[in-house]
């Protein structure tokens, strides 16, 4: 019996997959060992760089945290990401509902739908210069401006996802509530919004990953505000202290840890969300 199970395992594929894994592990290993070392341990030879550190000291991390103002940057990143995800789920699902329910029989709504969804083709490059000007003029050159912009930038994709999902939700569900005298607004929040939960998960994952790792929007909008997000802090750090690699790598590792923890905890939801978002 055991032999039969073994026979079924595709051994060559297993071996190749294990070897291939080194391309993923090696850059991470590199980051960890360099982050823990002192500059004096970094000789010019390969073994000097790649060997394990003599002492596992947290000094580099302490210093990097101070220089990049780690807790503030982390706080800003968390605030921006959570607020964007929350607003996206509320605003985009509402918009997806209004457009999805009406675009089949109303010219106005089908136009608005196409108008918003075609926003997907607009590259950030064409918006960035006017947006830098506009946010400064409107007093939105701060984290709140960044959140508003994200809600607009991810609207095309998310509205497409939500209104696509809505096709599978029968009208009968709403009509039953209407008979009971509930308003459309109430019906939406008590019946439709909870039913769309699988799509909320997809939207949350896609939006959170994109926002958390984004550099360009905060770079353009928050440049003058003395506030950093986590990626932006790395960019500023690199241009100031880029030659102290041990310190730099400690800072990079710090910036990767939150998303790694999130991934380890929610791996299944993340994989499902990413696939759902892409395939639909």
């Amino acid at each position, binding site marked *: 019996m055991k032999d039969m199970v073994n026979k079924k395992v595709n051994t060559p594929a297993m071996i190749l997959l294990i070897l291939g894994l080194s391309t993923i592990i090696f850059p991470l290993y590199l980051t960890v060992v360099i982050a823990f070392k002192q500059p004096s341990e970094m000789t010019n030879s390969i073994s000097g760089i790649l060997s394990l550190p003599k002492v596992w000291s947290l000094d580099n991390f302490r210093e990097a945290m101070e220089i990049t103002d780690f807790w503030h940057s982390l706080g800003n990143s968390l605030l921006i990401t959570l607020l964007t995800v929350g607003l996206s789920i509320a605003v985009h699902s509402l918009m997806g509902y209004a457009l999805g329910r009406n675009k089949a029989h109303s010219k106005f709504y089908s136009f608005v739908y196409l108008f918003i969804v075609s926003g997907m083709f607009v590259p950030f*490059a064409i918006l960035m*210069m006017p947006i830098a000007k*506009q946010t400064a003029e409107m007093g939105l050159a701060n984290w709140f401006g960044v959140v*508003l912009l994200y809600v607009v930038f991810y609207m095309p994709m998310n509205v497409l996802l939500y209104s696509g999902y809505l096709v599978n939700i029968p009208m009968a569900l709403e009509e039953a509530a209407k008979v009971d005298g509930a308003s459309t607004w109430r019906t939406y929040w008590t019946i439709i919004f909870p039913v769309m939960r699988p799509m909320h998960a997809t939207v949350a994952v896609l939006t959170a990953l994109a926002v958390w790792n984004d550099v*360009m929007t905060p770079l353009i909008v928050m440049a003058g505000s003395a506030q950093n997000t986590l990626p932006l802090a790395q960019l500023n750090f690199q241009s100031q202290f880029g030659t102290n690699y041990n310190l730099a790598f400690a800072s990079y590792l710090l910036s990767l840890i939150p998303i*790694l923890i999130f991934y380890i905890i929610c791996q299944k939801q993340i994989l499902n969300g990413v696939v759902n978002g892409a*395939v639909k």
Partner: protein
Amino acid sequence: MKNERKRTFLLITIPILALFVCFNTIPLIRGVIYSFTNFKGFGSYDWVGFRNYIDLFSDARVGKSYLFTFKLAIVSTVVVNVLSLILALGLNSRIRAKSFFRGAYFLPNILGALVVGYIFNYFFTYILPAVADMIGIEALSSSILSNPSAAWIGVMVVCAWQAIAMNTIIYISGLQTVPEDVYEAGGLDGATGWKQFKYLTFPLIIPFFSINMVLCVKNFLMVFDQIMALTKGGPAQSTESISYLIYNNGMSGGQFGFQSANAVVFFIVIVCVSVAQMKFSGKKEEQL
């Protein structure tokens, strides 16, 4: 009753549409307007008509950035799709610890492109040349990022490292839609190995192939973070992507108006490429 429903829908749509217009449509229109001026980003400016657009086509730096961006996008798309298809076949075969492997191979995709770029920057600058020295490969003994004719390969590797993770997951979900009995029936007709892949597996996952093509091309054409982290457009402007050029010269180089024209052209290019891809993949799926 019916009016209440109509009013609610309007009350939802109008404010959200207004927000979208304010931060998407209006900046877009302003961008187009700036493209007809000699605006530097500050101070006063004059209308220059189509001069920016005419200059654009004779500007060597802009031409070079288009060539680089398209070269990167095409080569990366091919490399990424071939590798991730092979990887997906491996991950979908009978192996142990399947979910561990899938999870591990997806990891690069969740990491920020900027920090990944910095880590690879170090790898290309210090590790790779040292290894090449040790085993005696002359061509790699200096950093490829400082070699104008090879730096794009470094950028490509970093882009691919992250994109393969994404495309593999999509191919796996495609492979899972192929029912087992298709292979059994094909096996009876002698379809195994490469033949099985060519005549059975691949045709059945073509929709997923199209998704990956669209995703890849669009993302690679807009490449920015990796350039910022690896080369800053250098050496000798050999890795200047269109987005990076627009950012660099438009935001701080005093070419606000000129780069706006560049961005308008880039926008039109993106729309054309996307529409062409959708038409092409739509046709392919119909044939099946």
